[in-house]
């Protein structure tokens, strides 16, 4: 009796270990030119390469570079924060020309690796080391405020009650860029609009997102924008239940509630990764610098599904504003101070 139990236990355990272990795989290498191809690899953060968010986007960009530019792409997934360093080392040992860290959580580890291996090139998404960037590292940031400004403008125009909500994940600079860009966009469309703002202090607590959104809807808001990761699932769910609008973030979140997601402020990590690969192919590397991608270079944008719910007249205005942001005619605030200054300039 006991023996058979042991066997069952062992088998179950082995099977699970096997299954769990299958997650990691390197992409097949293709297209070997006569010249040695450039090798670029990335380390995902704990989201993994199919997170339907920026890790996935990053890998899509690198895959596209592999197809179009003939570079050699591969990735390693991190299962926990402690995996970052070993993964960076593994990629160093496999002689890559450039190693990407995806996400600000990896900032310290990438810096450490870059100092240890000064001849190895590194790059990181969503982080800037500022003046202290080592010459073998590129930091990549996005102008989230530009896409947020556009979705804010849409919200300001589409709101029937003139009340609009913003749910933030945590009170940190990257979320401020979403928040103040959005606020400015709303007021640009409707200077009299009332904006409710609240932070969940979490990126995972969906129930809290739902509670906050419900409260905003109760107070009369009819559109709520979130920049809060998993918390946003709750925000979108609340919109679905009340049949009101939510605005998605990072990717086109229309699939979560096709009838209730008005638009999304998208971050195109793939375009940034592709751009850096293209430059490397041409022999350029902006080591020691921080690159910032915005509307101009396709680093951020609004979701393609926006046209489903937003009337053409508003879409036309949006494309005009987009052109004005790119040309610098309209500025978009990325912090509270910038927002207050912005208000003085644009709202009379």
């Amino acid at each position: 009796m006991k023996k058979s139990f042991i066997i069952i236990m062992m088998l179950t355990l082995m099977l699970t270990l096997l299954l769990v272990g299958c997650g990691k795989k390197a992409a097949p290498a293709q297209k070997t030119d006569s010249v040695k191809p450039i090798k670029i690899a990335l380390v995902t953060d704990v989201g993994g390469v199919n997170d339907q968010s920026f890790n996935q986007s990053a890998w899509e960009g690198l895959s596209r570079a592999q197809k179009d530019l003939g570079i050699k792409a591969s990735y390693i997934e991190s299962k926990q924060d402690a995996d970052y360093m070993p993964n960076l080392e593994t990629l160093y040992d496999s002689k890559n020309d450039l190693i990407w860290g995806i996400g600000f959580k990896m900032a310290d580890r990438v810096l450490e690796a870059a100092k240890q291996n000064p001849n190895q090139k590194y790059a990181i998404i969503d982080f800037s080391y500022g003046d202290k960037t080592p010459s073998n590292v590129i930091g990549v940031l996005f102008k989230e405020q530009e896409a947020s400004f556009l979705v804010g403008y849409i919200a300001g125009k589409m709101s029937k009650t003139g009340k609009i909500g913003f749910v933030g994940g945590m009170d940190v600079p990257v979320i401020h860029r979403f928040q103040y860009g959005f606020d400015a966009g709303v007021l640009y469309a409707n200077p009299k609009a009332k904006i409710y703002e609240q932070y969940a202090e979490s990126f995972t607590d969906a129930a809290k997102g739902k509670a906050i959104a419900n409260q905003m809807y109760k107070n009369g808001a009819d559109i709520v924008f979130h920049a809060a990761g998993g918390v946003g699932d709750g925000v979108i769910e609340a919109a679905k239940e009340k049949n009101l609008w939510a605005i998605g973030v990072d990717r086109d979140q229309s699939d979560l509630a096709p009838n209730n997601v008005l638009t999304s402020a998208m971050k195109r990590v793939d375009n940034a990764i592709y751009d850096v690969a293209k430059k490397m192919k041409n022999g350029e590397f902006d080591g020691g610098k921080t690159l910032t991608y915005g509307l101009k270079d396709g680093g951020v944008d609004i979701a393609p599904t926006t046209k489903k719910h937003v009337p053409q007249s508003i879409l036309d205005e949006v494309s005009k504003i987009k052109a004005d942001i790119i040309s610098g005619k309209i500025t978009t605030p990325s912090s509270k101070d910038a927002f207050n200054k912005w208000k003085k300039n644009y709202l009379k």
Partner: protein
Amino acid sequence: MLNNIALIIGVTLMYSTPLIFTALGGVVSEKSGVVNIGLEGMMVIGAFIAATVGYYSGNPWLAFLAGGLAGAFFGLLHAIASVSFSADQVVSGIAINFLGPGVALFLSRIFFNGATMTKSIDLDNKMPRLLNGIFHKDSFLYYILDNQYATTYIAFILVFVIWYILKKTVLGLRLKAVGEHPAAADTLGINVFKIRYLAVITSGFLAGLGGATLSISVVSNFRPTLVSGQGFIALAAMIFGKWKPVGAMLACLLFGLAQGLVVFLGQFQIQIPSQFLNMLPYILTLIVLVAFVGKSVAPLADGIPYEKEQKH
């Protein structure tokens, strides 16, 4: 003002429901003398399976049940390790907590074309919202019960059911006997192993229902961060509630209420950093625990594997 109070109560109910299911699971297992810190892992697998079955079948009840059964299966693993093999119950529980998310992730990639997130379930295919549309909009009860799913009511019914079983039935008495003094129970002819198996599997089933509540009532899809720690909060609520069904329920409600207050207070632009505001549920729990609840005592044989005496 009244409507604000109603909204806070509504948030409390939504927040507490998954915790109540899971904490009840904790009570049943620990009453029989098996520590179950694997609640978190059982919740994760329950949430994932419910979201998947719900998406593919379109039947919320089937999904809910499947979530429970997935949790029960993990409960079975925990029982095999900790009851049959007298393994350290904490270690086995931790293993379950690793196993839950791992298996969920793996299966998600198979069923959803490589994605770590399941696809969203339509509102019509979610749990029914029993009392929606009955109350006049802007009435007190409207704000409490609007968009409350059937799972909320089931949770409270289950509290009563578990209380009744533990308090009034032979099975409940045997379960408690096994948790307090297994050797004595054994000499009276109670099958300690059988009772403990039953308890731990039931515990997994309830935790699975808790997870399912998150993925098919609170939201309509699963993502790996959905549960993030709620299993541990339920575990704390159970201890806080002195290993009793009603106590655990009250602890869950208190925690939910604190979250409701945070959400309510957060709407005003008060000069408290939101980080501090969001500590409220945990601080409140600590204060109530220290000031009002007093010492809580676990079942005597909780965490101790039972082995029949060997013949000398």
